């Protein structure tokens, strides 16, 4: 029973991370019908921008709440800007071409970020950028406190990360369903052409969607880096792919679906890896994806669309 609860805690904390990343995939897919392959790497950039900012501010020596706030806002701003740049220069010129073209470009952007960050640092910069292939260690913002509840070990990091993630998801839910921007976004996702005819600035909405998704990826990266401080340029690959699986599981294009999918994937991974061989962890997500696509390709909450000839 203790073991079961422990896996539940681990699965939930992993699942919220997947959910945050999956939201970026699902929103972009909603408005553009494009799998933004580079999203996992935006997450990686989020971790690195947090790393640079935290080091510049000296978070390790005297951590304060204000500094943590600056690191969060700064990383979100950097990732948001990156998301904007990627959309503006890599995807927008291809919007009316075949979908495969945009997919290949997305893979290219993803590789550019992954391997660009592995290059040796340029001389003469105040910070070591690009960081190179060796892993870096994220500075610990505050001491780790472990609690023992019913034999389940739980740290203050887990609690904070869960609270922050839930807060951001609630905020996103409000943005999508309660603001003018959110309404416009849903309209574009429903039919970009008609939305444009109704006076919605489609390009601006799509850019905004990318910025929003990239910011959530930055949040996810900082929450992960807080408790697992090892960061490297390839760290976004697996979480990115798994979050995509989570988005498909929940029904891609559906915002609440991504959250449920993320949690379900996190739990499934923890339970299967916990009770069987843990080295199969990375295969679980893909097995799940194949199963979902075979049994219910539109996902849990997705609407299936009839094929028009």
């Amino acid at each position, binding site marked *: 029973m203790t073991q079961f609860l422990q896996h539940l805690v681990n699965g939930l904390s992993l699942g919220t991370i997947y959910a945050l990343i999956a939201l970026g995939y699902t929103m972009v897919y909603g408005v553009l019908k*494009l*799998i933004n392959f580079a999203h996992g790497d935006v997450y990686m950039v989020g971790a690195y921008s947090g790393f640079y900012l935290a080091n510049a501010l000296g978070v390790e020596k005297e951590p304060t709440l204000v500094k943590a706030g600056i690191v969060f806002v700064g990383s979100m701003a950097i990732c948001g800007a990156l998301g904007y740049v990627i959309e503006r220069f*890599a995807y927008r*010129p*291809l919007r009316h*071409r*075949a*979908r*495969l*073209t*945009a*997919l*290949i*470009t997305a*893979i*290219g*952007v*993803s*590789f*550019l970020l*992954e*391997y*660009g960050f*592995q*290059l*040796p640092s340029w001389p003469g910069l105040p910070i070591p950028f690009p960081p190179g*292939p060796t892993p870096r260690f994220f500075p610990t913002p505050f001491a780790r406190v472990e609690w023992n509840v019913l034999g389940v070990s739980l740290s203050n990091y887990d609690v904070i990360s869960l609270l922050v993630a839930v807060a951001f998801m609630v905020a996103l839910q409000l943005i999508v369903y309660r603001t003018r921007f959110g309404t416009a976004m849903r309209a574009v996702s429903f039919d970009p052409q008609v939305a444009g005819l109704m006076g919605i600035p489609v390009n601006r909405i799509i850019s905004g969607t990318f910025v929003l998704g990239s910011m959530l990826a930055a949040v996810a990266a900082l929450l992960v880096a807080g408790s697992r401080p090892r960061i490297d340029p390839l760290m976004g*690959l697996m979480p990115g*792919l798994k979050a*995509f699986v989570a988005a*498909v599981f929940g029904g891609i294009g559906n915002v609440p679906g991504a959250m449920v999918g993320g949690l379900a994937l996190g739990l499934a991974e923890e339970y299967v890896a916990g009770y069987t*061989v843990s*080295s*199969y962890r*990375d*295969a679980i*997500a*893909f*097995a799940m*994806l*194949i199963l979902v*696509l*075979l049994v219910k*390709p539109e996902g849990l909450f997705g609407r299936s669309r009839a*094929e028009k*000839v």
Partner: protein
Amino acid sequence: MPVPSLPGAALRSLLPFLVGAPILVAVQALAPPEQAIILVNLGVNVILAVSLNVVNGFTGQFSLGHAGFMAVGAYTSAKITVAMAGFDIAGLPPSLSDPLVFALALAAGMAMAALAGFVVGLPSLRLRGDYLAIVTLGFGEIIRVVIENTRFLGQATGIPGLPPRTNLVWVGMGAIGTIAMARRLGGSSHGRAMLSIREDEIAAEAMGVDTTGYKVRAFVIAAAFAGLAGGLLVHYILLVSPRMFTFVRSMEVVAMVVLGGMGSVTGSVLAATVLTVALEWLREVEGWRMVMYALLLIVLMLTRPEGIFGTREIWDLWPRLFKRRAKAA
């Protein structure tokens, strides 16, 4: 076109091999070892790119798991040659028996890879475009994870000490065979069915093309030849390990197919050649290699998404130079 008589047809299909064999033997005898490894890499990349072109180019699907099939073929053939090392078939001398065993091992590798391709091809029944890309990627990763967890296959360290069997003649013959297969497939009724799926799947289905069946067939063919490439490669570097068959490897092949033009066999051959040789020059600046691939893909998609040749072959570009071929096509 008049139907050639049976001996004529047989001769025509053997012609590339008959012309290629003496050239390959000469190159094998003359090439210094450091050049030979580049040529082996080149041949393997040609096999990979041309076979992937059957799925991504002819059929218009998008597979990102080619390295997984390569791994299946490589491991199968490696297991067989290691087990059969020092064992002579029917009392033949080793100089005859070893190549025979190797050929059988390669065939077994192709068969196993084809089986894997069949399993991956099945979900493509229901998926299109980007979903299929992710699923094939997932299968490639699953194959690798399973290998890394199987003691019989040497787990993460792989199987060292394979017998040296591959030389330039083997690789060259494999490449010629793959190109001949792709060309002849492209002109056959099977190939035309695949092309019709690429052009318009719904229309193809309405015309009575068994779209699912042809997609699966394309996967099986491509997977079999990827297995051949894997078997050839590992018997040259004498080691097989899961690290050789990552997602990055699949991406390199995709870059070759995209650069050459999806659907163009000569384009794939040319792109495989250019990229292999260019990357050999870039070996000193190892870190830039993948950055170059990434930039190449992005710039290519933004400026010329159909690749160098598009769906045309090299002789379609200068019809006067290749008058006879152009007329035949």
